[in-house]
């Protein structure tokens, strides 16, 4: 017997109200495909291009009480929609990077300062965090960025201007840069 939709929704809201949820998430359509968006009480903690794998990672990183609660994700969804419509250049969202290792967090914090429509290089970012020879480590931090798009690792390219790599695939990186007018 199928659970009535309304009952299902009420359970999810009660779980939230009683503070029993470690991570709330929802799936959301976007021009770069379906995204999983996840938040904790501290803020946005994940945007994922591969939802199923992301659920397990979220459980390991933040606790197993991972529950789909669309309403909790709405503020993030709204800003992403505006971004994809070209109406938003800066995200105004709290983030939760608590499971991210220190060096990666430092790199992501520096990354967040790279403006809309511009690109930087792995080497330049390495210099900014005071480790000028750590371009490769910066690459690793970008590769494991838990909040792509909002933390704009798509704006980091190779020293020769080539796009190089993107955890979500180069097609997506290109699309995001094109959207921002960073490439033609």
């Amino acid at each position, binding site marked *: 017997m199928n659970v009535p939709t309304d009952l299902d929704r009420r359970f999810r809201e009660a*779980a939230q109200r009683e503070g029993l949820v470690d991570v709330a998430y929802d799936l959301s359509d976007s021009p770069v495909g379906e995204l999983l968006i996840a938040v904790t009480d501290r803020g946005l903690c994940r945007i994922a291009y591969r939802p199923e794998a992301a*659920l397990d990672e*979220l459980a390991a990183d933040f606790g197993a009480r991972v529950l789909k609660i669309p309403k909790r994700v709405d503020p993030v969804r709204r800003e992403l929609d505006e971004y994809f419509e070209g109406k938003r250049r800066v995200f105004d969202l709290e983030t939760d990077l608590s499971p991210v290792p220190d060096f990666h967090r430092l790199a992501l914090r520096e990354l967040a300062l790279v403006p809309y429509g511009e690109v930087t290089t792995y080497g330049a970012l390495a210099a900014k965090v005071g480790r000028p020879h750590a371009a490769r480590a910066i690459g690793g931090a970008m590769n494991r960025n838990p909040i792509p798009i909002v933390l704009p690792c798509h704006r980091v390219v190779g020293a020769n201007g080539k796009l190089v790599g993107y955890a979500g695939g180069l097609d997506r990186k290109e699309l995001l840069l094109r959207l921002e007018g960073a490439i033609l």
Partner: protein
Amino acid sequence: MMGTVVIPPFERFYAEHNDEVFAVLARRLGRQRAEDAFQETFLRALRAYPSLRHGDHLRAWVLTIARNVAVDTHRREKPTVELEVDPAELPRRPAYAELEHLTGELTATERAAVVLRYAYDLPYAAIGAALGSSEDAARQAASTGVRRLRKTSHDQKERP
């Protein structure tokens, strides 16, 4: 990622069992009252979820919670109903089958506590949630149950 995730994300656990739990509750309580009981069942599961140490036998666990929520619902109306655990709805597995013939003389609570603890290896906090009692009460029920089991099997051996 270091280590392996043993407990499934709650969403996956919920998606796997919610229809069955609702069906069980609707059968026992009628559709209307099943709605409140459904919510209470999964809220109890959610409260105890962090205490789980492995992801096995979650179906048996959540069905035990559901049955006890149903019993609580009945009790509020007719205060004398006995706690029931229907072994037919627990999945089969050898450890449980071995216990089955021995558990006849236990109370339903003791039987559920013993089976969930020793056959399914669930922690007491999760058993307490399933039985609608505390972790201590669950430990107590399992230990009384085991003592009674020892006595039963001892008596059986003594018999000529």
